[in-house]
């Protein structure tokens, strides 16, 4: 049995679901960041699989390059926010940071 497009899509779906669970269930801001990284990787593997099993014009790989660049930006900003939150609240528990709650 050859490995086809659907196999990679199923792996991407499983990773996306796990990332979603991680985002929803973890209390620490870093745990949420881990979930977001899982979701971005799930998107990336879909893009590259579509590229491989599509026309072979490399558009999917270009999109994956941009996703990786934005993931780097997002990690830097998120870590800065987490450290700022730690300096202000003394904790990175997301339940504590509810000052904007109406």
């Amino acid at each position, binding site marked *: 049995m050859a*490995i086809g497009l659907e196999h990679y899509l199923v792996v991407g779906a*499983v990773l996306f679901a796990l990332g979603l669970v991680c985002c929803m*269930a973890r209390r620490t801001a870093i745990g949420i960041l881990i979930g977001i*990284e899982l979701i971005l990787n799930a998107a990336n593997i879909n893009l590259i*699989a579509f590229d491989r099993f599509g026309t072979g014009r490399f558009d999917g790989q270009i999109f994956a390059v941009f996703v*990786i660049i934005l*993931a*780097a930006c997002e990690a830097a900003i998120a870590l*800065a926010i987490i450290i700022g939150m730690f300096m202000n609240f003394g*904790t990175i528990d997301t339940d504590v940071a509810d000052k904007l709650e109406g």
Partner: protein
Amino acid sequence: MSDFFQHFGQTVAFIAITAVVIGSALAATFAKSIVHASFALFFTLLGMAGYYFLLGADFLGITQVIIYVGGILVLLLFGVLLTSRSLDQLQIRSRASYIAASAVGLAVLAMLWKAIIRGPWQHVTPVVPQQTTQSLGRLLLTDYLLAFEFSSVTLLAALIGAAYIVRRREK
């Protein structure tokens, strides 16, 4: 005959990488301590690089190892260690919220599964790409030049902003 062996090797490699990726992603999601979750994420990201190599995207595989494993994961561990004073009393949410989140995740997974199984995928015989680096570089500097420049400005702005957020404030 060699075709058979190539298919067989690909299938074995896919199954091995899938075991690593899914197993470590499960650990990253459900591990009690955040340090263990970060280390599990390390294996997930390495396994993703393996998928990229398997899919013929060698440039992206290398990029994944350099940026994700070498950069983002190290940043994540810095974050864990710099804020570790608050981590010991902060393990995970209650069991009930994990169960609720898992239920939502399973529902999403079932939906995606249904879409993937039913999807009218057109099977094109995949062409084996040869020089991904050359083709990607050409595309980045021709068709995608604006997006490429814009992403570099975004990266610069994000790094300056990150340094500004965590600066030392004078009283």
